[in-house]
């Protein structure tokens, strides 16, 4: 019953002409869906700011040089309700983050899945941005 209700809700969601919902701003205006990036690095800081949180990550390149990246996440209230907390993003934590690069070529990206040291994955992105891989919250759509 629950499954069918969720299925009906999902259909309705699709019925809404694929309209993205939760993003504060347009994904495509700022990020390039044709430029996916996977970053392996160490968290230096999490900014729990509105309208979007920003995760700062130091990424060591093949040449050994460390480059600071900024990863855009969803709104703090959405991330908190999704399971993110202070411990998830402690400075020094080694993570792998998938995202899409900023159109202006700077070291910024729209974040998607973040893989934590224990292998657990958390989705940091804004739902409804239309970013490839964008999806509803865990615990919502099954």
């Amino acid at each position, binding site marked *: 019953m629950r499954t069918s209700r*969720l299925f*009906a*809700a*999902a*259909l*309705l*969601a*699709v*019925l*809404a*002409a*694929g*309209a*993205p*919902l*939760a*993003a*504060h*701003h*347009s*994904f*495509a*205006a*700022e*990020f390039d*869906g*044709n430029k996916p990036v996977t970053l392996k690095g160490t968290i230096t800081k999490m*900014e729990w*700011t*509105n*309208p*979007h*949180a*920003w995760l700062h990550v130091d990424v060591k390149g093949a040449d050994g040089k460390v480059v600071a990246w900024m990863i*855009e996440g*969803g*709104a*703090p*209230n*959405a991330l*908190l*309700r*999704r399971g993110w907390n202070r411990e998830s993003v402690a400075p020094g934590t080694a993570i792998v983050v998938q995202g899409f690069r*900023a*159109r*202006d*070529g*700077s070291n*910024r990206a729209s974040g998607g899945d973040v893989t934590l040291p224990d292998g657990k994955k958390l989705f940091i992105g804004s*739902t*409804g*941005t*239309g*970013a*490839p891989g*964008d*999806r*509803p*919250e865990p615990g*919502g759509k099954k």
Partner: protein
Amino acid sequence: MTMRDRRVTLLALAAAIAASALAVLVAQQASPPTTASGAATNWTPTRTPDGQPDIQGTWTNYTSTPFEVPDKSDTPDVYAGDLDGSGRGTGPSSFLTDTSGRQLTKARSLVVDPPSGRVPIMPWAEERRNYKLAHIQDDWVNFTPWERCITRGVPGGIFPAGYGSGYQILQGPGYVAIVYEMIHEARIIPVDGRPHLGASFRLWNGDSRGRWEGNTLVVDITGYNDKGSVATNVATQRVRAIPQSEALHVVERFTRVDENTINYDVAIEDPKVFTAPWKVAMPLHREPDYQLFEYACHEGNRAVPNTLSAGRARDRETRSGGSR
């Protein structure tokens, strides 16, 4: 099959199933006071110390109902700001965001009048919206007030967005206050019979004046500026970023129909923008344990400079003959 083809297929499938299953549900919203299930109610709210019907509490607006009834003429990529037509300005809808375990309203559309479920937008206003969304990288004035962290608008701020969905209503002698979780807005609505401010005042969210008609709080809003929009969130689809004029006139009605439900409906007229008045109806659900988080929108609003810098990078590439 491309992403776009899949979406079209899914749309067709969803339309077929949903149209047959859900046509019944929409009429229930249009005739308050009723319960969420559509049954008539004789429920009487308690009173505040100064005698107002008590509508205080924390309310949420989660829903699975689309804003408008979809139409084949819709261009969701445009509404979502998909600049290069790659289909990546839109994506899977997130109507289920944050909704786990919650009661979701499922109806044909939030727009209940006209009966088509389609907002009667004048062509010039759609063209204006399309221009601004297509040129968002060119000038900050092309952003919606929400993207600029000014306001989600009135009534737009109460239209479902999928997150930041909490509303706290507080009442004091002569006033009703509504705290909007997103974007950290507070409306203070006098219900003491005072007149509107007058035409010399032009406000982003207009000038709200409330009165009680029985158990219904009626809020009359005029005095808007012509800079905002009645809807700013992508969930409002085709209506997002449609401009408002100084002639905008909004009448909201809040009716608490049982312990856990406020029927909210709003009539919108703007003869410079819409060819006829239109109306949205939806329930607000009482959720006492829901905690409103701060949404201090300006503190990290990098979207505006980053979007503009994306545009300048595009300009440099264009000048140098590069392709994107």
